[in-house]
């Protein structure tokens, strides 16, 4: 939280360009995008498929590097870092929540939440304690020894959220977190996101559902690899 970009933002992207090569053709997924996100912001990224939404999410999540441009994350330009350094950044700075939960099927909820801490190189005792705390935040401390197939969809996504917050990341990046859930369960999950936001976290939701986006304080709409609109809302 302490280290910010030159202009005082948690995330600052300047003139970001991403070009994919598909066969002999070049696909311009992002065409010079500028975006700044402050600390403890709650933001939704929306846009039709092909708008560059997924590309932007991958870049924010440090899963990929831009073709050109700069990306400052917590004061560090991560646009041209090595594969290994990016893995470290992801581990320390980013908490991922996926549409399909992506839990290890044969591991318990506790172990799933511990996973990023294993890669952070923490001792088992510390991992257990922090994973239990994270599971308590999402209200699953009574289910921590259950495996994913013994949990409901909503519970699985809560495990995934616990896994995202357990490292105390700079930013929580959620890709269609309610996409595989029914409306009621989706609403419960959104309540947890709201709660985590209220606790001082920064959350970026990627979604195409207006209902979900309405939870946030800011909606960024993409079209053709550029920002179409950037709308601040009163929560």
């Amino acid at each position: 939280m302490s280290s910010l970009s030159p202009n005082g933002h948690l995330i600052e992207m300047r003139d970001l360009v991403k070009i994919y090569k598909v066969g002999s053709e070049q696909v311009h997924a992002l065409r010079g995008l500028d975006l700044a996100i402050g600390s403890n912001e709650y933001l939704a990224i929306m846009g039709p498929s092909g708008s560059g939404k997924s590309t932007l999410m991958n870049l924010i999540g440090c899963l990929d590097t831009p073709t050109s441009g700069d990306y400052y994350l917590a004061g560090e330009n991560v646009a041209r870092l090595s594969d290994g350094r990016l893995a470290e950044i992801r581990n320390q700075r980013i908490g991922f929540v996926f549409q399909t939960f992506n839990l290890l099927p044969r591991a318990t909820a506790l172990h799933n939440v511990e996973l990023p801490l294993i890669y952070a190189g923490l001792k088992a005792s510390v991992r257990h304690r922090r994973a239990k705390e994270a599971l308590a935040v999402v209200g699953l401390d009574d289910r921590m020894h259950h495996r994913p197939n013994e949990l409901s969809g909503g519970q699985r996504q809560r495990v995934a959220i616990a896994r995202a917050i357990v490292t105390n990341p700079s930013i929580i990046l959620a890709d269609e977190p309610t996409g595989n859930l029914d409306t009621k369960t989706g609403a419960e999950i959104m309540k947890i996101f709201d709660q985590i936001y209220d606790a001082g976290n920064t959350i970026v939701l990627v979604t195409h559902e207006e209902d979900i986006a309405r939870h946030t304080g800011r909606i960024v709409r993409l079209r053709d690899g550029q920002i179409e609109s950037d709308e601040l809302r009163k929560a």
Partner: protein
Amino acid sequence: MRFVTDLGEGLRIAFRALRASRMRAVLTTLGIVIGVTTVLLMITIILGLNKAVAGQFSFLGTNTLYVSRWSWFDDNWRAMLKRPVVKVEMADRIREESQLAVAVSPWGDTQRSVANRSNRLTRVQVMGVSEDYLVTNSIKLDLGRFISEDDVSHNRQVAVIGHGISEKLFDRVGPLDQRIDVGGHKFRVVGVNAKMGRFFGRDMDDFVLIPITAFTKRFARTGDVDIVVKAATAEQLGDLEWELRGIMRRLRNLGPLDPDDFGINSQSMIMNIYRQVTGSIYAGGIIIAFISLLVGGIGIMNIMLVSVNERTSEIGLRKALGARRWMVAWQFLLESAAICALGGIIGVVLAFAGSKVMNNFIPTSMPLWVVGFGVGFAAMVGIFFGLYPSMKAARLSPIEALRQE
């Protein structure tokens, strides 16, 4: 710390994956199992032989030379048949003239039936020796005494019997002073040799020792014997051989250009043959083991590639959560090593059982390091053949990997 925690988790994942597809795991490890079993059986046989040979070639006596009409590893029988026989008396001449000989005993052997009132044994090795044979061949007795100088000079019909003979003929009464029939002649048992055990499936305890004089009279009319000569140390064997050659050539009145008309044989000749034989067993074993480990390793590589494919999204997830390339590679290497080590363990168990069975025919020996070697070697194969699949997993892009569900 990271290694240790990951090791435990990696192993758990590996064995879960194995349990999930038992048939596949069994087939996959089959090559490794066969390879490890082969290697270990070869090693245990060689070790067992070495141990047995070291212990059991002592029946030839240590640091001894055998002066004989026959050169042991010479094929030219026709030429050797023309040689004069080596007589018992030559033992006395050698004893008188040799400076290096510690003990000299004539030695002859034949196969005869041996019996007492209740039992009859056929084809028993009957050897004629003198009192010095006690020294030349380091004889140890369980009961009674060895053949004495008087027994030899007075041509007495006495016998020292092997442990096996004693057990077979005298299961109730004590063997000492009992009469036995050796090849139709009565002998009195004066001593029983200590147990020697089995060698190459042959019982080393089935023999009868009698005075050389009685032996030549009853069983070897030609008087053709060997002469066992013992040197003080192994280093003196070479010198002793030259000395004996000189004495024999003088006794035989050979001119400077005449070839030897006798043979001077040593254990080292047998040892050389033995090394050649075990050398080819080694070579054969290594080739078989290498091929089966190669086949097994390729099987492992194949199964690991399948595993990497099946778990693409898991790899993506792990990378997204901060696993670096080497951590992913490590996980799959570990899995591959674990599968192979499992195959190694099965191989060790099979080899252990196999060595127990084979112990009935040839001596085997399986020390603990062999077990560790088997499992460790299998794991090395796993790591080697797991390298490529692991690299493949490590290089997967997290985005591509996550996209697959």
